[in-house]
């Protein structure tokens, strides 16, 4: 069921993916023990399928990758950060509907 289209981001590959992508990139900061993050996971997958080619959707496990969340001051998850041209352009916290996330990304397409 897991979508192939959701990119797994890490402290190691984050800068490269964010810096080298022309389309907007939505990053879902999550962790295994976070209930709402698990609830959001299918929405993120559906979003990746739907926006394939128009936006890049990634997930970053804050448990395994402490540096990136620290750099962006992430202190609540799920946190959803939107990057464009390597820059942070939008962010939101908490579970959102697929359509709300789509609208968020469409502002940067």
């Amino acid at each position, binding site marked *: 069921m897991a979508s192939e289209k959701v990119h797994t981001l890490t402290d190691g590959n984050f800068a490269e993916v964010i810096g080298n992508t022309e389309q907007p990139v939505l990053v879902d900061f999550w962790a295994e023990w976070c*209930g709402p993050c*698990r609830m959001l996971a*299918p929405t993120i997958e559906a979003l990746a399928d739907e926006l394939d080619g128009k936006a890049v959707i990634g997930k970053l496990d804050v448990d395994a990758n402490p540096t990136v969340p620290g750099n962006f001051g992430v202190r609540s998850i799920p946190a959803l950060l939107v990057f464009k041209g390597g820059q942070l352009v939008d962010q939101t916290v908490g579970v959102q509907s*697929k359509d709300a996330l789509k609208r968020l990304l469409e502002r940067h397409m």
Partner: protein
Amino acid sequence: MFSVGNKVSIMSSELHEVVIIGSGPAGLTAALYTARASLHPLVIEGLQPGGQLTITTMVENWPGHRDGVMGPQLMADMRAQAEHFGTAFLSGLVERVDFSSRPFVLTLDSGHEIRARTVIVSTGASAKLLGLPSEMKLMGRGVSTCATCDGFFFRNRPVAIVGGGDTALEEALYLSKLASQVTVIHRRDTLRASKIMQDKALANPKIAFRWNSAIDEILADEHGNVNSARVSNLQTGEVEMLTVDGVFIAIGHTPNTSLFKGILDMDEGGYLVTTGTRTNVAGVFAAGDVQDQVYRQAITSAGTGCMAAMDAERWLELGDVEFHHAGEPATVAVPVRA
């Protein structure tokens, strides 16, 4: 078109006997009962599938689990049980309801419309906030309403919790395992929480209390991250700057009823007004926290979910008039037969 839990796609034009809005203990119990009554219920899961219990840890007061059960596990089990008997699930958010004509029409945020003969409202409640401008601005930057989600970010850091109920103390106890110091800020000098939670929290060396106190401002450093809270003693007027990296708000809940404003009767607090589980619109029933500001337990939510399911089933069977008679035995004379 829709992403549906049991992988059956649902046509928007299809007419459903029962549509349940919300997927906490009330919604899933209503689904279980209506599914077993062969009414093929559709559950619209909402923003937080599984409801408030999905962000708790151990639930120790769900009967039958003598060693407790994890909230997310309990909800996953309830969902699987409802699904097993034929409940369909739809991930989405209801944006509009039209209860003025039959069948009822529910419009999702995707724009899709769903038609229903009966609706069970079990949209639950959401965490209440303090109402400070700084609180909204710092949400996700140190202000949180979910200790199990965000406690991780405050390892060996000082945090504050606002509130004096079971949720506040449960979060305090959870955070005491991670944070360097936990300060509970409470408006009164007595706790509303159950005795067992009070005993645990009061005995915990990492948990301190500020009684008769309230936070009137949350402050941040130059990076926009919370670094302190201004705490006022409501009796003496004394002000203290508390050094904290996180502020967790647990001051109760507000019912999720904005969708029904002007459509369903509600009290001043926004809770739906019901007779049994009936709302003022015939064929629309309510269950769980959305109509209960007194008990608000998983078990009472499940109980009212069961009641709403049985009421919806009977309403579909009998229609309006007969249902009302059957539902009010005390006011209806029983015909005597020779």
